């Protein structure tokens, strides 16, 4: 499952930061390579990895680059705690430790195949979905129509805006809808919360919904989708809890009989419904 050295799954490999992009005032995207230049490991869209600055802390981050990227892995990280603050102070050439990939992935090769896909993301919630979106775009023939609804607090907080405009918007049979929470000078796009915009657009139910964002957004998007006729079996999301081991043993992310780090982070909503309400 993970290939972090043969010693033990808890012993990481060294990753070298080969590129840093400032996405928004508090989000940076880090390119990570193995010290010899290659990729650290192969992963599937939706999987995560434990990134650590020794002496500071270790944290689980979703891999935001697509597996079709053969050169490096990317992590989009928002500054919000001790570890992430330190990560933001790193420079190109610095080393971190990485172990993974952990968890399950979006069923891009099974359930998603041949289907229309609707991605709904809020803020940094785009990070795990970007991996799926790029995977689907790189295997365009396998998927139907792709709709992407992405919202953020302000225009400055839209992650990966350049890529959205240059690649996603120009890709065939892809519709991108952007929105920001409040009016802002220089923004002539839509203004309003994601769930409201969702209802305004009114997607048809012939697709699979993939949602990621802050819990409150997920809650209202889910409501919206259901009103539009979506069923639980049609909607996917990724969960996030505190994790330490990443391999379903340390007990933190245990909900019911599931471990979010090992059995998740990707869940279909009917699976979430079966879990005790503790996430």
């Amino acid at each position: 499952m993970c290939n972090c050295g043969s010693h033990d799954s808890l012993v990481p490999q060294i990753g070298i930061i080969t590129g840093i992009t400032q996405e928004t005032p508090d989000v940076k995207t880090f390119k990570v390579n193995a010290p010899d230049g290659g990729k650290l490991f192969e992963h599937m869209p939706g999987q995560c990895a434990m990134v650590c600055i020794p002496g500071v802390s270790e944290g689980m981050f979703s891999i935001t680059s697509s597996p079709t990227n053969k050169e490096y892995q990317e992590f989009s990280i928002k500054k919000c705690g001790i570890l992430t603050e330190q990560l933001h102070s790193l420079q190109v050439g610095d080393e971190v430790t990485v172990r993974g990939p952990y968890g399950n992935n979006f069923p891009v090769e099974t359930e998603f195949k041949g289907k229309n896909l609707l991605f709904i993301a809020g803020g940094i919630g785009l990070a795990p979905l970007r991996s799926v979106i790029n995977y689907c775009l790189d295997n365009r023939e396998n998927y139907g129509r792709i709709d992407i609804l992405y919202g953020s607090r302000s225009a400055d907080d839209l992650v990966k805006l350049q890529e959205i405009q240059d690649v996603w918007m120009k890709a065939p049979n892809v519709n991108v809808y952007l929105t920001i929470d409040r009016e802002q000078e220089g923004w002539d796009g839509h203004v309003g919360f994601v769930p409201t915009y969702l209802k305004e657009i009114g997607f048809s139910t012939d697709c699979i919904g993939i949602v990621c964002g802050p819990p409150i957004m997920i809650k209202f998007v889910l409501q919206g989708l259901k009103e539009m006729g979506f069923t639980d079996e049609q909607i996917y999301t990724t969960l996030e809890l505190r994790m330490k081991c990443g391999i379903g043993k340390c007990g933190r992310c245990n909900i019911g009989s599931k471990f979010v780090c090992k059995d998740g982070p990707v869940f279909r909503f009917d699976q979430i419904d079966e879990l005790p309400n503790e996430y």
Partner: protein
Amino acid sequence: MYKISLDNINSLFAAIAESKELFLPVKKAGQANYANWTEDCEVALDSLKTVKSPKDAFFPQFETLYKVNRKIIPTDASEEEGSETLVETKLRTKLEITPTELKDKDFVVFGMKSCDVKGIEALDKVFLTDPVDNFYKARREHGIIVALACHEPEESCFCTVFGVDPADPSKAKADVATWIVDGELYWKAISEKGEELTKSVASLLSDAADDAADAEISNITNIMTKLPNTKLSLEGWGEGKTDEKFNSEVWNELYKPCLGCGTCTFVCPTCQCYDIKDYSTKDGIQRYRCWDSCMYSDFTLMAGGQNRTSQVQRFRQRFMHKLVYFPDRYGMYSCVGCGRCVDKCPQSLNVVKVIKAFENEKKEAGANV
């Protein structure tokens, strides 16, 4: 079956310790805990329950996983060479990881009770499922378990509820089963590892009748039936009982005295939650693993909040995990009825009281219908 007189038992320990580490109940400052045997230690084979369970032998409370050396080095000097003005030297962090060696020496855990052996089975389920925990696996491979029958079980014992036989350790997944009867230790190898160990100390053992422990076995079995907690019923617990139990009102009353300390989790033979943390020394960083408790308020705390914010949720999690989630996932209860939490909880809460509280609720509900 073999035997050795208890008067002579120290020579047995010395013989084992010659080639292997020997881990057994030792009394220190008034309390019996598993520790390494030394010639001058006070062995406490007669202690029914050590304070901590022997799970330390396979899953120690603290262990270093790996060391990281962090070198801060300046970038290529050539970039700065020749410049007249002071150039800010850029520093880079280079890391070097040295994993801790896995256990490669045999060791013996002597005097484990049947319930504790069963506890190791529960740990196996967690640590030996994919991805395997190699630190644990190495210890399991090198560990030899000598189990000892429970001479006089106490009122806090309820292992029979979970299918453990305290009288006959040869039924447990141990390597050697032993009994203490009238000043003699009776010895029966039950696995290949056990046979080998027996061979290595054979000169100290003498032959004994195969039925030498039978009277003791029936005696213990008889005592067990008299103990109050062995009549506990697990009806309503186990696989698939999540919804029924999770949403019960009983938790809201039951948890109240809970201090949120980690006593129950740390004395428990099956609790396996851990934390991974850094320890910085001047020579580098040691990344270590230590036991953690789901009862602690920071167990699930994240930068953006957490999912189990109240003590009632944490309390419920511990018992749901032991009695419902664990059976759901691994097909066995994560409680072996050793009764340590019954003895040690500062507020006299424990798994027995939890099970009984739900029984009472059912009775009351039944009466109201």
